[in-house]
């Protein structure tokens, strides 16, 4: 996030920078590590997060500059102490909500921490929002708060000056339109970023990324808003994809992104994005220096030794792809498609309890039929005909379940799409109900 309010922002007509970023980057997206699905490590949206994740030592302390809503919240799975700084107080609150141990509003060039406070200082999509004149001050602060031998990791938006005018060459209107898209006032060439880091750190490594792999949404945005010359019919094809198709595309892109990292394939200059790793100590591998992804997966099958446990945040529960990522409604709940399942272990389930709601507009006139099944056997069947939250508790008849693996399934008779045609915030997900507080009552094994 930017740390000054003047010059380019003002020239672009943005007076309240914090408010600008609040409206741009605050969302009800749930990034809390406890809700992270292992499968999402392939999602291109989390590719940068995974690069940091695989480069951070478990149990370390990490400062996230320009934390936004908390894209590095996943690092909590590695038991790190995670601190965030953002220009927007609301973004800092969102980061705290998503599991940051501490998040505060502050300028990046005046970090409110003593010297040598963190093992790692990281940032994703932040330094591209810092004007060139202020970047050195930010990097000096990064160096100051890093412990000796600490490493700084950054994902930075870059530019190819052959394809884009410099800020000085832009007319006020061109500058306004350019900055209004994402707030980029500090774009530099990839090697310029690296050179700047070299002035502060003894060892600097950098890799141009996102040359090949972008999310479907990013392809369309780069073509529409920044005028990047992608093939028009390909962009048009991406524009027509449904939510499920976009998800599949992003997963494939993320998979390729990860494999490029794993194979250490050096990509040519892309002019879009650069990953920078720097330290005063000699650097380890650029990728996967501390790769340990065990915490992303459910631990070895073991039933929790309690009378009841909640599946929502339990790492042993596996939510299948019938569930969408959690949203803050509030509370935090998962929207499901027409059919969704969650697997877990239990010695014997005695009852199931959950809270559910729907935002289906015509549910009063067309009740939504729902069915709850355990291991394929129906537990409850009912119709939902009003909005608001419904608490459902279903007892499990004796003999229905066997000890060990269990599968809880929810089925809905239909779905709806919230904003299928909205050109700005299109949401064509097929939603039925949102579920949270999914508790399993069991006999102790």
């Amino acid at each position, binding site marked *: 996030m930017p740390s000054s309010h003047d010059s380019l922002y003002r020239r672009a007509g943005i007076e309240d920078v914090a408010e600008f970023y609040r409206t741009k980057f605050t969302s009800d997206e749930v990034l809390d590590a406890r809700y992270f699905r292992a499968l999402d490590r392939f999602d291109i949206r989390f590719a940068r997060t995974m690069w940091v994740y695989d480069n951070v030592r478990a149990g370390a302390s990490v400062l996230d500059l320009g934390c936004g809503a908390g894209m590095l919240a996943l690092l909590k799975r590695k038991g790190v102490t995670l601190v965030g700084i953002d220009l927007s107080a609301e973004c800092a609150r969102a980061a705290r909500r998503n599991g940051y141990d501490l998040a505060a509003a502050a300028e990046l060039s005046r970090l409110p921490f003593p010297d040598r406070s963190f093992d790692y200082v990281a940032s994703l999509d932040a330094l591209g929002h810092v004007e060139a004149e202020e970047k050195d001050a930010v990097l000096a602060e990064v160096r100051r708060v890093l412990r000796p031998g600490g490493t700084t990791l950054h994902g930075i938006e870059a530019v190819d000056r052959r394809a884009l005018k410099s800020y000085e060459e832009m007319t006020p209107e061109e500058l306004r339109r350019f900055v209004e898209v994402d707030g980029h006032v500090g774009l530099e060439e990839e090697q310029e970023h690296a050179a700047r880091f070299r002035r502060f750190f003894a060892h600097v490594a950098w890799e141009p990324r996102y040359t090949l792999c972008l999310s479907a949404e990013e392809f369309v945005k780069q073509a529409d808003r920044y005028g990047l010359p992608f093939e028009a019919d390909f962009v048009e094809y991406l524009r027509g994809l449904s939510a499920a198709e976009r998800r599949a595309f992003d997963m494939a892109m993320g998979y390729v992104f990860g494999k490029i990292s794993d194979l250490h394939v050096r990509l040519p200059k892309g002019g879009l994005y650069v990953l920078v790793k720097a330290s005063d100590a000699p650097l380890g591998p650029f990728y996967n220096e501390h790769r340990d992804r065990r915490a992303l997966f459910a631990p070895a099958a073991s039933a929790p030794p309690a009378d009841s446990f*909640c599946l929502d945040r339990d790492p042993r529960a596996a939510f299948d792809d019938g569930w969408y990522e959690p949203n803050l*409604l*509030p*509370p935090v709940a998962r929207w499901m498609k027409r059919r969704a399942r969650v697997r877990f272990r239990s010695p014997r389930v005695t009852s199931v309890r959950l809270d559910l709601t729907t935002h289906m507009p015509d549910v009063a006139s067309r009740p939504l039929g729902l069915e709850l099944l355990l291991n394929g056997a129906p537990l409850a069947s009912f119709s939902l005909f009003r909005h608001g*939250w419904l608490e459902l508790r279903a007892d499990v008849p004796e003999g229905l379940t066997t000890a060990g693996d269990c599968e809880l399934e929810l089925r809905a008779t239909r779905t709806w799409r919230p904003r299928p045609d909205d050109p700005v915030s299109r949401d064509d997900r097929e939603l039925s109900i949102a579920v949270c*507080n999914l508790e399993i009552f069991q006999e102790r094994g």
Partner: protein
Amino acid sequence: MVDHEVENTLREIRERVRAAAPPDTAVAPSQPPHAPAAGHGAGFEALARMEANLATTERAWPRLPPVLSYRRGAAARLELWLKRLIKRALHWFTWEQVNFNSAAHHALRDALSALSAHERLLADAFSALLAHERLNAEARAELDSLRRRAEAAAADLARLNALHESLHDSLRAELRAELRAELHDSLRAELYDSLHGSLRAELRAGLGAELRERAERLAEEQRVCFRQLSLEATETAVTHDRARRLVEARLERLEKQVMGDG
């Protein structure tokens, strides 16, 4: 209505004309057979000439041989005397001619009488025709007059209708305004009270229901949020407890290790 009036008027005129017309007979036997009808030009002249010629034949038919002379005095008397002598002497010879002359004269007189009668009939018919035409003209004039009156009456009627309409409209508007004002004044309080009361009750009920529904939803949302917080707190407590026990176990192991070393 106007058409009926015009029709009745025409019927009345027609009946009056028929009543005033002369009988169909054109003969006037009471008039003398030879009296020429006034104004009947060529026919009457011919009959006058025929009458003059019959005067000649009437005078001459018994005088054959002629007993008249162009001479004067004694010569004339002598001549006439001689002719009278000759007349008697030649009577056996001339009587046939005299009879013929007499018959011709009387036939012509009868023809004159018949023609005169016909001429009179024609004159009468002509007079009747003239009178009829006069009556027709009068009737036509009267008809025109009546038509003009009828048209004027129709125009008056249209004006009256328009006036009636405008009056009706204005009266209706006035009446409506008056009624509205009256209703507004008289019923306003009553209606206002009743409507206001009912609307207020409905609004209160609707708002109350809406507020109740929102409050219920908020309460539900709060319940779910509190439940979530409670579960998270439990999970955190469990995690902390596990961590504490783990730390305690490690400490215990360390103590044992230290004691063992000691």
